[in-house]
């Protein structure tokens, strides 16, 4: 099976966000594989181990994204592709990303493409379903289980807490939700092997695209931090009194009861 994973490098979830010169400060930030994409990498490896084939991890990013690709290779992916837009693109949105991926996939004959259902930074959740539409693949979002049998796939997906059981067929793009699996940590031999696995680097020019083709449809005009939440009132006294006071405060002061 020809399996692809869409991967994004994101800030570590531990990172606090600061803004300087109107941009998110990234100096000294720690990066990880977007956690939902990690589920995708794990599931891709499991599908390959069960059905054979090859797992290729694809990212759009910059030179530094190689680190997250190597991590995915160390987990067990076979090949990686870095589409480096550092020199070509100043701005992009989901339209841009999907335009590039569409060009990349044009000659690929993917059986399954796995992606995270959302990235924890920009959190649009658009790239997976947008790409499926461009590639004419069926698409199932927020999956928590997948069984592939020949051309058929049986999937469970999370729909706002309910479980929907879906049957569909390959070629297929799925987006992964928490609960799908428990991503493995790369093993030491895995890390050693990853250094020798193929990592191809492309630029948009290699995909016959130029800047105008991928011009974004949206623009960020301002980034700001939410007002810092002030610590409130910690109640005192016997529990019974605290509870009475709380209910009264919620009713009269906060007006939420």
């Amino acid at each position: 099976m020809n399996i692809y994973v869409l991967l994004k490098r994101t800030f570590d979830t531990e990172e606090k966000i600061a803004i300087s010169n109107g941009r998110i400060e990234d100096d000294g930030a720690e990066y990880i594989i977007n956690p939902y994409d990690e589920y995708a990498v794990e599931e891709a490896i499991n599908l390959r181990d069960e059905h054979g084939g090859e797992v290729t991890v694809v990212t759009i990013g910059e030179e530094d994204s190689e680190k997250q690709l190597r991590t995915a290779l160390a987990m067990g992916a076979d090949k990686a592709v870095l589409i480096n837009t550092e020199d070509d693109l100043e701005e992009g949105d989901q339209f841009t990303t999907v335009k590039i991926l569409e060009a990349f996939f044009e000659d690929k004959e993917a059986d399954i493409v796995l992606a995270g259902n959302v990235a924890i930074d920009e959190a649009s959740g658009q790239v997976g379903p947008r790409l499926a539409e461009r590639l004419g693949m069926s698409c199932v979002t927020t999956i928590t289980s997948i069984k592939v049998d020949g051309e058929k796939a049986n999937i469970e997906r999370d729909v706002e807490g309910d479980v929907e059981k879906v049957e569909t067929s390959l070629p297929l793009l799925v987006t992964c939700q928490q609960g799908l699996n428990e991503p493995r940590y790369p093993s030491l031999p895995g890390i050693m092997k990853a250094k020798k696995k193929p990592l191809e680097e492309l630029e948009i020019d290699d995909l016959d695209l130029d800047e105008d083709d991928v011009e974004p449809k949206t623009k960020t005009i301002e980034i700001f931090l939410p007002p810092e939440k002030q610590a409130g009132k910690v109640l005192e006294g016997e529990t019974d009194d605290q509870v009475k006071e709380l209910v009264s405060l919620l009713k009269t002061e906060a007006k939420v009861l």
Partner: protein
Amino acid sequence: MSKKVLVIGEAREGSLRNVTFEAIAAANIVSDGGEVVGVLCGDGDLSALGQEMVYYGAEKVITVSNPELKTYTSDGYAQAVMEVINDESPEGIIMGHTAVGKDLTPKLASRLESGLISDATEVVAEGGNIVFTRPIYSGKAFEKKEITDGLVFATIRPNNIPSLERDEALTGQVTEKEVSITNIRTIIQDVIRKSSDGVDLSEAKVIVAGGRGVKSAEGFEPLNDLAEVLGGTVGASRGACDAGYCDYSLQIGQTGKVVTPDLYIACGISGAIQHLAGMSNSKVIVAINKDPEANIFNVADYGIVGDLFDVVPKLVDEIKQMKVNA
């Protein structure tokens, strides 16, 4: 510049979701005096639901009824909505950022080769441009965004943009459109309901959330009672999910759901940065924790230092008492 704006409505168990009315209010801002047109897909007679959209501010509503649209599939709904888009040629589209909205709108935007701003919490018209505010990094920061080319297409986060007043004096045409639905590639075989009374976390007005301090699956019982008496729903921290006390679908935080209810009651949750990202924009936060140093108290409006198994049942009784007195 006035625009024609389409609102994709969403019904759940026979009634419209609140976010549909909020979407009409957002569309009203985007349309800037233009026309707000509703579209509603489903099976059976949808005219009463269409009428309801009119009472909340849609100037006309197009319903598409077909047995194939009884449950949502992206292929079926995309086909139906695309036909309405082709008929109406809207200059804007607004929908709720719900499970259906998240699944459907990127596919429509991709087909239309348009931009899409997801999960907006605020919409304002600023000097001829429509500016959307949306959380990034799970609410650790926000960005203001606008569409630079083509269709003004956005999804809005439930519970953030106030809907317009319901007004039965409002009139508008509700018309049914026939659409033949073909080529549905995904077949829904079964839906297992797990969420309590169909109240989704992202739309809940009140959330009672449990963390590691809940100690077991049974430990969620008093939290369920509290949620019930408040008409809310139960959520959890990653700690509680990882420990197996509850399902991952309840997880609130940077991985998991990001929620903004009117009232968030955190029980036995320490307040890791990832959890705070998912809930700190709630309107009122109550923290109940044994540890007075717990980080959750730094974002709480009201805190009780104490054992949740002591405090929560007393809180349930007190609220019940309050309701009796009222």
